[in-house]
C-alpha cells in the first residue's frame, strides 16, 4: 500500500507545484531549461557538424544535456537523502571516471554551491535565515575554501601523478569517515538550550528571533562558543575547497552542537554561508582554467532547477531508503578511491572480482539497514 500511495501523492504535489512556491521566475527558468536541454538535443540531431570535427553535434549536445540531467539528479537525490549532492559528486567522479581531478573538483564546487545559493532568496523572507550569522560564517568558510582550492591547484601542478593518487587516497579516508558518521548518526538537538551568550557572540550580535509556525510562537535563541566554531568552520572550508565538496554536512552539526543553534536556523544559515562562501573559493579553479564554460554551465543550471523542484516535490516523500543507498554509495566510493589511488601509484591493481565483491558487501549493508529500519 506504501508504493501505491507514494506515487499519487507525488503526482498531486506536481499538480500543485505552483501554489506553495510563488516564485514565478524560478519556474520560468526551469521550464526554459527543460525546453533548451531537451529541445536542443533533438534539434541537434539534424545539425551538421563542421567538416573537421571528429564528433557529431548530437554527441556534444548529449554531453551537455547529460551533464544537466546528472546535476539535476544529484540535486534531487541530495535533497531526498539528506546527505547532499556535493558530497557525492566529486568523490564518485574521482573514483570511477577517468576525468582529471582538478576539473572534477571544480565541477564539484559548482554542484555543491548552487543548490544552496538559489534557495537563500526565498529563505531570507521566512525569517529563519540569520543573515548576520550567515555573512559571518562566510568568512571562515570562504577563506578556508579559498586556501583549499589554491592548495588543490598547487598540488596538482607540483606533484603530478603521485599527487593525484595521494589526493584520492586522502579523500578515501574522509569519505569513509563520512560514511561512518552518516551511518551512526550525529547527536543533533532541535532546540539546544544555551544559558549564556559569550563575549564573541555578543560582539557580533547574532541574536535573531524567528517565528516557528508549529510552536505558534517566536523563538529567541542564544549562541555561544563562537570562536571555536569559527576555527572548526575554517577547516571544514579547507576540506571542501580542496576536494570540491560541499560542507553543509559538517556546518549544520557544528552550528547545532558547538554554537547551540536550533536545527532549522542552522540549516538555513549553512545554506547561506556556504553559497556565499563558495563565491570566493571558485576563483582559483577559474584562474587555472579548470572551469570550462561549456562543461560548467549545464551543471550550474541543473543544480538551480534541481534544487527548486526537489524541495517542492520531495517534501512529503519518505526518503529513508535513498539515504541508506547513499550511505552504501559512500562506502563503495571510499573503496573505489582508495584502490584507484593505489593503482595510480603503481602499487597494486586490484582485480575485478574484488571490486564486485566489495560492491556486494555494500549492497548487503544497504539491505540490512533497510530491514532494520522497517522493524
Amino acid at each position, binding site marked *: 500500500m506504501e508504493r501505491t500511495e507514494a506515487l499519487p501523492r507525488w503526482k498531486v504535489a506536481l499538480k500543485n507545484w505552483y501554489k506553495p512556491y510563488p516564485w514565478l*521566475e524560478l519556474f520560468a527558468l526551469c521550464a526554459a*531549461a527543460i525546453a533548451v536541454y531537451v529541445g536542443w538535443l533533438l534539434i541537434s540531431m539534424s545539425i551538421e557538424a563542421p567538416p573537421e570535427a571528429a564528433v557529431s553535434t548530437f554527441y556534444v549536445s548529449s554531453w551537455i544535456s547529460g551533464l544537466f540531467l546528472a546535476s539535476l539528479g544529484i540535486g534531487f537525490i541530495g535533497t531526498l537523502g539528506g546527505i547532499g549532492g556535493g558530497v557525492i559528486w566529486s568523490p564518485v567522479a574521482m573514483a570511477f571516471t577517468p576525468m582529471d581531478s*582538478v576539473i572534477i573538483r571544480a565541477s564539484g564546487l559548482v554542484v555543491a554551491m*548552487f543548490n544552496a545559493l538559489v534557495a537563500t532568496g526565498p529563505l531570507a523572507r521566512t525569517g529563519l535565515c540569520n543573515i548576520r550569522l550567515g555573512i559571518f560564517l562566510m568568512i571562515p568558510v570562504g577563506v578556508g575554501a579559498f586556501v583549499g582550492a589554491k592548495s588543490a591547484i598547487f598540488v596538482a601542478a607540483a606533484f603530478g601523478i603521485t599527487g593525484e593518487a595521494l589526493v584520492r587516497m586522502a579523500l578515501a579516508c574522509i569519505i569513509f569517515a563520512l560514511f561512518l558518521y552518516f551511518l551512526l548518526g550525529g547527536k543533533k538537538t532541535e532546540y539546544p538550550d544555551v544559558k549564556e551568550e559569550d563575549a564573541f557572540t555578543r560582539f557580533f550580535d547574532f541574536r535573531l528571533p524567528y517565528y516557528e509556525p508549529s510552536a505558534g510562537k517566536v523563538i529567541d535563541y542564544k549562541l555561544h562558543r563562537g570562536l571555536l566554531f569559527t576555527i572548526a568552520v575554517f577547516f571544514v572550508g579547507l576540506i571542501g575547497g580542496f576536494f570540491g565538496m560541499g560542507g553543509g554536512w559538517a556546518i549544520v552539526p557544528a552550528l547545532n552542537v558547538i554554537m547551540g543553534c536550533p536545527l532549522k536556523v542552522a540549516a538555513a544559515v549553512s545554506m547561506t554561508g556556504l*553559497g*556565499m562562501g563558495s563565491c570566493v573559493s571558485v576563483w582559483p579553479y577559474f584562474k587555472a582554467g579548470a572551469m570550462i564554460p561549456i562543461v560548467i554551465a549545464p551543471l550550474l543550471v541543473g543544480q538551480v532547477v534541481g534544487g527548486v523542484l526537489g524541495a517542492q516535490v520531495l517534501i512529503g516523500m519518505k526518503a529513508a531508503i535513498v539515504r541508506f543507498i547513499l550511505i552504501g554509495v559512500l562506502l563503495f566510493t571510499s573503496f573505489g578511491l582508495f584502490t584507484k589511488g593505489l593503482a595510480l601509484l603503481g602499487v597494486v591493481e586490484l582485480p575485478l572480482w574484488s571490486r564486485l565483491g566489495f560492491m556486494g558487501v555494500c549492497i548487503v549493508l544497504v539491505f540490512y539497514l533497510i530491514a532494520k529500519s522497517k522493524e
Partner: protein
Amino acid sequence: MEEQKMRIPFAGIVIGDTLYWVCIIGALIALIGPVVSLLAPANNMADPFKIFSLVWEGKSSGEIWAAAAAAGQYPGPLFWMQDLSKGDAITQLGVWLACSCSLPAALFGGIVYLFGLGGARRSVTYFIICMFVAFMILYAMLI
C-alpha cells in the same frame, strides 16, 4: 499576531534577493551560451567538438585549453570581457555572473548596515564585515 511582531531583517531580504536574481540571470545566460556555441562552432574560444572527449580522456585543464583553444592556451578567467560575440564567452559570462553573485549582495548588504536602511539596525561592524567579504571576493577574482 505574533508573526507580524517579529521583524524580518531587511539586510537579509536585500542580500537574499540580490543573490537570487543575479543567480537566475546568470543561469539563464549560461543556458543559452552552449546553444550559441554549437550554432556557430567556429566562433568560439575553444572548440566545443573537442572539449568533451578531451575531458573524458582525463586531460588536465592546461592540456585541454592547449588542444582546443584557437589561441592555443587558456585565455584567462575573464575572457568574456575580451570578445562577447563568441559562444562560449556568453556561457562564461553567465557562469561568472552566477559565481560572483555574492559580490553585489555583500555590497548592498553593507550599504544597508551602514545607513540602517529599511528598518534594519544600523551596524558598523557588519558594514565592515560586508566590505571585507566584498574585498575577499575581488581579491580572489583578480589576484
